[in-house]
């Protein structure tokens, strides 16, 4: 089925089993402790996980094109949340039209074409230089650097960084036939191996978020950065990252890595994911908001869910590309 082979289906089956356990536990907790806001939030979160897992499974089954489209939509939703909290003004409107309607679509087009060279330079080079130039033409100089920098940041995080997750789908061709053969290979040519890489990253990074939440809620005492996020504790961080690293090592059979390399890559991804969550918390704290939005019930906005993936995906992508292609 599309990019899903039997192995991936077993893996998704395993995730479903975990969700069944989670839903049952939440239900039992609710019966025992009564309906508190924490329990309601927990149930909302788990229900949202069901939907997110179903969505990922469905798009992978439908193939690379649909998966790339999903991530384009996620990028656009994240971008909308990000510019909402940015200090942009009416003078930036024309540049925001480029930012939202043109650049992400072109970037994802290069991604879909497997044109790695253009995929990797389009935003950091061309969009980076074009956007401030267009904005200078608009003539508003007040807060220019701050506004331009925010727009660049939004683009890098919401579009460039997130797009490295679906970019994993095209790595298997480079692994087998070399980087030159991979350039311009057809969409879907990464096959099930590509889907395994993406699932590995998603399970490890999102698993790390969940495990940090669980460790933090049960044992958390010493905050890491109290002025940024009182919910992030050393106990949650260490417990979450180590258990998610173990999870990654246990999933080595899914990847071309040895168990030790799988553990190392998982560790790097989890630490990057933590950094992403911390950075986004700092932004939210500065803007005086709790969540980026309310798109995903229980979780907040799209960016609240993807903050860790933003930081983990590009690094994981380049680790795999550097060492395995």
């Amino acid at each position, binding site marked *: 089925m599309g990019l899903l082979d039997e192995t991936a289906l077993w893996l998704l089956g395993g995730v479903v089993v975990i969700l069944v356990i989670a839903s049952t536990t939440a239900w039992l907790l609710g019966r025992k402790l009564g309906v508190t806001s924490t329990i309601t939030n927990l149930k909302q979160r788990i229900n949202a996980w069901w939907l997110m897992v179903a969505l990922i499974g469905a798009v992978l089954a439908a193939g690379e094109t649909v998966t790339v489209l999903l991530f384009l939509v996620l990028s656009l939703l994240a971008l*909308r949340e990000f510019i*909402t*909290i940015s200090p942009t003004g*009416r003078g930036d409107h024309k540049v*925001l039209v480029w930012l*939202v309607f043109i650049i992400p679509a072109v970037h994802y087009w290069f991604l879909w074409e497997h044109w790695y060279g253009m995929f990797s330079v389009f935003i950091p080079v061309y969009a980076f230089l074009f956007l401030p130039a267009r904005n200078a033409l608009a003539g508003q100089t007040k807060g220019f650097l701050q506004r331009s920098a925010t727009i660049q940041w939004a683009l890098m995080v919401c579009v460039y960084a997130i797009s490295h997750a679906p970019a994993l789908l095209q790595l298997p061709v480079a692994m087998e036939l070399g980087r030159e053969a991979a350039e311009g290979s057809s969409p879907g040519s990464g096959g099930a191996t590509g889907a395994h890489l993406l699932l590995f990253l998603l399970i490890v990074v999102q698993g790390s978020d969940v495990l940090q939440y669980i460790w933090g809620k049960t044992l958390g005492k010493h905050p890491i950065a109290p002025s940024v996020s009182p919910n992030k504790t050393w106990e949650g961080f260490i417990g979450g990252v180590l258990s998610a690293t173990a999870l990654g090592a246990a999933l080595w059979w899914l990847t071309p890595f040895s168990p030790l390399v799988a553990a190392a890559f998982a560790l790097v991804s989890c630490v990057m994911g933590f950094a992403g969550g911390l950075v986004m918390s700092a932004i939210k704290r500065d803007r005086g908001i709790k969540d980026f939005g309310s798109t995903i019930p229980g979780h907040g906005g799209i960016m609240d869910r993807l903050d860790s993936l933003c930081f983990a995906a590009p690094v994981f992508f380049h680790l795999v590309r550097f060492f395995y292609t």
Partner: protein
Amino acid sequence: MPPLARRALARTISGFAGARVMGADGGSDPQLPDQAIYYANHSSHLDFLTIWAALPAELQHRARPVAAKDYWGTGVRKAVVERVFNAYLVDRHGSSSTRRRESDSGVSPKGQIAGMTEVLDAGDSLIIFPEGTRGDGESIAEFHGGLYRLAQHNPEIPVVPVTLANMGRILPKGEFVPVPHLSTVVFCDPIHPKPDEDRQSFLTRARDVLVKCLAEHQRREDAQ
């Protein structure tokens, strides 16, 4: 328009505007009266669309946005606002200069008020923008007098303040392509004109509700 198509259109508008609909208490399910005079701050052409889209289905088909004839009164625009949104078109300034002065001083030309009271008498709701024109989205201009006259016309009809945050960033004045941002529509608690309240104090009170609510919901604090 068939009800189903209307709902689909309303969903599309709300989705594009990323509109979060809230009551005064912060809950997501505001209690709205069957008939009302909705008034809101104005910074975008999307304003009346978004309020219209945010209304529950049973109130939506009886809510008539008031739109300026000089902008919406011709061609395709007219067809769309009248047929789809059941808008009530008014002459903003009239043609004579005396009327214009009257309007600027906060007294609306008589004719347009009479038309709007007919809408109310027919049992429909109105959606109006008492600033009279689109602002920059940051501040709220002084209100024109029409709101007071409408509120006085039938004090039984609740006057519902609606605060719109971020609409002016999605489609600012003078721009043609809307850029998606998340926006907020807050239906505040209804206000009523007090028996001894004069025009200016009612208008000030009505405006203050929006000013206060907007300050709470405007997400960017140090925006330029």
